[in-house]
């Protein structure tokens, strides 16, 4: 039965969200969880910059600092950036292809809960003896030697989270391959869907490398393995390889959806179709493919030898070509357009020079002998923050602002959004531009402190000042969200006015089933084509009929909980007798829940044709 006309109390709403398999609500779950972790990672960043504001500082102890820097990186990449990107993919991709949901709604929720429990597991380390302290890259010799359970929380937590990511990646691949509306060929898919598609393929092939590495780490630390112990025939360098075979595609998993967001926003707010669509698709695929060929550029100083270094240097430089193609295509999308500087557009416009700066320092780092100087210095820290903050974070801020009305039925306050934008822009460049020079002047990275009279004082002080701007910008964003939720104005299906893609053809938020009738797609920018032809709505591709919907389920929560419990148990297996027992109990809970899901037939429910006709007027979730 349609939930549209049911009113729920707080308890009911919480249960609804815990068990929903609706991609739109799962998107909100990802947004909330990712948002919370973004704040956690942001506080960790603030602590880093406070500690480094002056030389020989002791705001935090050396050991704690290493935990903070590790968690900052790990949280931001795995628990903030990726989930927030998943939030947008969930909210938007099924709508953009004219589908009613993803291919596997149950697995979609499972992916979320695995991520959430993994993130919780990782952050429990703060309260249970100390967080991991070997960097987000957790190189093997240091990790194996790290006392306490911090690294175990890292390895097991990321393993659980990673399982969720892998499941979601497969889900989006199948969804995009199988569930496009009639008329939507691959080359008529919006760019955000394309980048989700390629990123999902990257997830599919990259995450297993991390899975293997983490298992080897877990075996060594908890089960007496020796994969990384040189004295026992093991090798620490293999961790570096496994991590970066995952890690490099990972950064393309982050940036490709970000590129997709901007490929939606730039055309929309310049009222022009994306320039060079085929080239953009080709460049996306090429970046994804080449992304697997370059991992050892993170290891130029490891001692692989000149042949390896030379090959990986050249391969890395090659990626600059498709990326450059994209930048020029975006610029020429703007050329001849009618540009409106809404807040999402401001981010898109600021992204272009910021990402170019980050990208070119990447090409500089591809020059292996030069990288012998840059590697493990603040130059590299500057490089990756420019591409991640200037690319991914900008895209998340832009995309969340852009699609907020579609998800929640209300527009965020534009003035506050612009204030966030400007403060964040200033803070971002203040903090990270000077770091290029700090690195060149000899400052290594991951340093708890720096000594005076080495020329590094002023640069670090400037860098720390920028953090305050970004903090204030984030606070304003929070105020904006609260204010809008409390008393924002309701909006219609196409609140920005210039929507080109299918998500803008239905109400905000969409009804539970998205499209009453699957739309007929007549070309790229399907909704825009209809608008230009004078139609207010999409032409349906099927008659009105009963709609088959999936049921909610508590089982994904149980499966994830089981894995969480197993993690706790195995983490303590060498300290307590109950460790293995609890571990096994957790696995039993997990497998029983999976068995329960497989054994019991769940055929979903139907929304009947008669109810559909009235639903236009009610557009509520």
């Amino acid at each position, binding site marked *: 039965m349609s939930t549209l006309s049911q009113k729920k109390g707080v308890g009911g709403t919480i249960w609804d969200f815990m068990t929903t398999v609706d991609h739109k609500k799962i998107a909100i779950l990802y947004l909330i969880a990712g948002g919370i972790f973004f704040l956690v990672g942001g506080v960790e960043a603030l602590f880093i910059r406070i500690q480094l504001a002056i030389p020989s500082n002791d705001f935090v102890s*050396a050991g704690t600092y290493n935990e903070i820097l590790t968690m900052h990186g790990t949280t931001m990449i795995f628990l903030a950036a990726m989930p927030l990107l998943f939030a947008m993919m969930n909210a938007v991709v099924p709508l953009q292809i004219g589908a009613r949901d993803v291919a596997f709604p149950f697995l979609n929720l499972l992916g979320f809960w695995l991520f959430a429990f993994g993130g919780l597991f990782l952050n429990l380390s703060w309260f249970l003896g100390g967080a991991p302290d070997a960097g987000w890259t957790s190189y093997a*010799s240091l990790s194996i030697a790290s006392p306490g359970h911090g690294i175990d929380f890292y390895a097991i937590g990321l393993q659980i989270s990673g399982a969720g990511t892998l499941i979601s990646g497969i889900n989006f691949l199948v969804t995009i391959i199988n569930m496009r509306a009639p008329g939507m060929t691959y080359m008529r898919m919006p760019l955000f869907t394309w980048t989700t598609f390629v990123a999902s393929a990257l997830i599919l092939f990259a995450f297993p490398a991390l899975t293997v590495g983490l298992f080897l780490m877990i075996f060594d630390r908890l089960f007496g393995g020796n994969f990384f112990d040189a004295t026992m025939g093991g090798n620490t360098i293999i961790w570096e390889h496994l991590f970066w075979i995952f890690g490099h595609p990972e950064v393309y998993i982050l940036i490709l959806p970000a590129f997709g967001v901007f490929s939606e926003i730039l055309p929309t707010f310049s009222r022009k179709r994306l*320039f060079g669509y085929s080239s953009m698709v080709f460049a996306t695929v090429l970046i994804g493919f080449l992304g697997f060929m370059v991992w050892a550029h993170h290891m130029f100083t490891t001692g692989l030898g000149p042949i390896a270094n030379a090959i990986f240097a*050249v391969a890395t430089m090659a990626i600059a070509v498709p990326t*450059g193609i994209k930048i020029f295509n975006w610029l020429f999308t703007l*050329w001849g357009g009618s*540009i409106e500087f809404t807040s999402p557009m401001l981010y898109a416009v600021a992204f272009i020079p910021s990402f170019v700066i980050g990208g070119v320092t990447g090409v500089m780092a591809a020059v292996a002998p030069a990288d012998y100087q840059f590697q493990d210095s603040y130059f590299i820290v500057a490089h990756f923050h420019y591409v991640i903050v200037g690319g991914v974070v900008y895209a998340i801020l832009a995309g969340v602002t852009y699609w907020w009305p579609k998800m929640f039925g209300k527009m965020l306050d534009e003035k506050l959004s612009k204030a966030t934008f400007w403060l964040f822009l200033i803070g971002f460049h203040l903090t990270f531009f000077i770091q290029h020079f700090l690195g060149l002047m000899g400052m290594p990275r991951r340093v*708890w402190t720096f000594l005076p009279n080495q020329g590094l004082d002023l640069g670090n002080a400037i860098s720390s000042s920028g953090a305050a701007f970004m903090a204030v910008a984030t606070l304003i964003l929070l105020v904006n969200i609260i204010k809008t939720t409390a008393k924002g104005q309701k909006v219609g299906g196409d609140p920005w006015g210039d929507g080109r893609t299918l998500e803008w053809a239905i109400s905000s938020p969409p009804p539970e089933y998205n499209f009453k009738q699957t739309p007929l797609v007549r070309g790229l920018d399907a909704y825009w084509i209809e608008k230009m032809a004078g139609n207010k709505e999409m032409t349906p591709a099927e008659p009105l009929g009963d709609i088959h919907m999936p049921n909610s389920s508590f089982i994904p929560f149980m499966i994830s909980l089981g894995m969480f419990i197993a993690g706790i148990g195995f983490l303590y297996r060498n300290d307590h007798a109950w460790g293995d027992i609890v571990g096994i109990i957790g696995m039993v809970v997990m497998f029983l829940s999976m068995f329960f899901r497989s054994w019991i037939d769940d055929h979903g429910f139907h929304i009947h044709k008669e109810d559909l006709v009235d639903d236009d007027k009610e557009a509520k979730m």
Partner: protein
Amino acid sequence: MKKWRLNFRVLSLFTLLAFVLSACGKPFLSTLKPAGEVAEEQYSLMLLSTAIMVLVIIVVTIIFIFVILRFRRRKGEENVIPKQVEGSRKLEIIWTVIPILLLIILTVPTVISTFKLADVKGMKDKDAVVVNVRANLYWWEFEYPNQKIITSQDLVVPTDKKVYFNIKASDVKHSFWIPSVGGKLDANTENDNKFWLVFDSKKSKEANGVFYGKCAELCGPSHSLMDFKVRAVSSDEFDTWAKDLKKAKPDVETASAKAGQEVFNESCIGCHAVDVKDNRPEQARQAPNLAGFSERERVAGVLPHNKENIKKWLKDPEKVKPGNKMSGTYPDLTDEQVNELADYLMSLKEK
């Protein structure tokens, strides 16, 4: 664009950048003040890549600024729908081919340099200066196999000739970096990494003869305090230094120093040698060799070298370098013992 115009622009950008960047940082620490052949070659590559990238940035910026100014939606244009342009094959080709050409310009010196900097054939010459670097938590051991001496923390090297390095780590991964002299090389636990550096005599004068070395791979709480110093001296001075160090004996004259020597020989000597001819196997050499300690640049790698700081380090090493391996290896010392030890350590001369 004609090739010579491109080259001219690149060259002038190059020069401009060299001026701008050369103002940055200290001569003993900055990669922008290269003090030897390796750092200079890496600096030229940095300049070349920066120049090419600045060119790209300028082109992008010009188009970018033009576009956002010229095509803003103006009042009265609220209902204008611009012409929808699918693309341009010509432009796609241009902005694919030109970047490829620019990258080729960058690739050739990159590959040449990668091979040149990895060429350590000369290490086998019998008069080559070779240093076996062993990185530990949180100190550096420097063994000179041809001179047959082992020292630590201060790396003494001859100027104006290749110095070869064999680099490894004894506990966890570290990385050996002297920024103004050349890029870094990781110290791994399971293999030796090899490279060479040259220390320029003129530049080393600008740096007062001492270059700063850093650990560049997160290794634990005191990773940021694992500094070492490089003393670049003439080739003759280097040979003399090595010979003298082999003959050096502690210069114990005062009563305090003698008492300090007794305290030292009771416990410290278990890990610390005071003689550069240390025949113990690697695993037994668990602490820095202290021969010539009185003339070192720093105490524990980070504190200015004076008696006060020696006492500070001995009294509470954990406070100076959290997580270091000396903390807790000896009982609390009285102030008198600390004073005597400091006097003894100040008697360890280089000749």
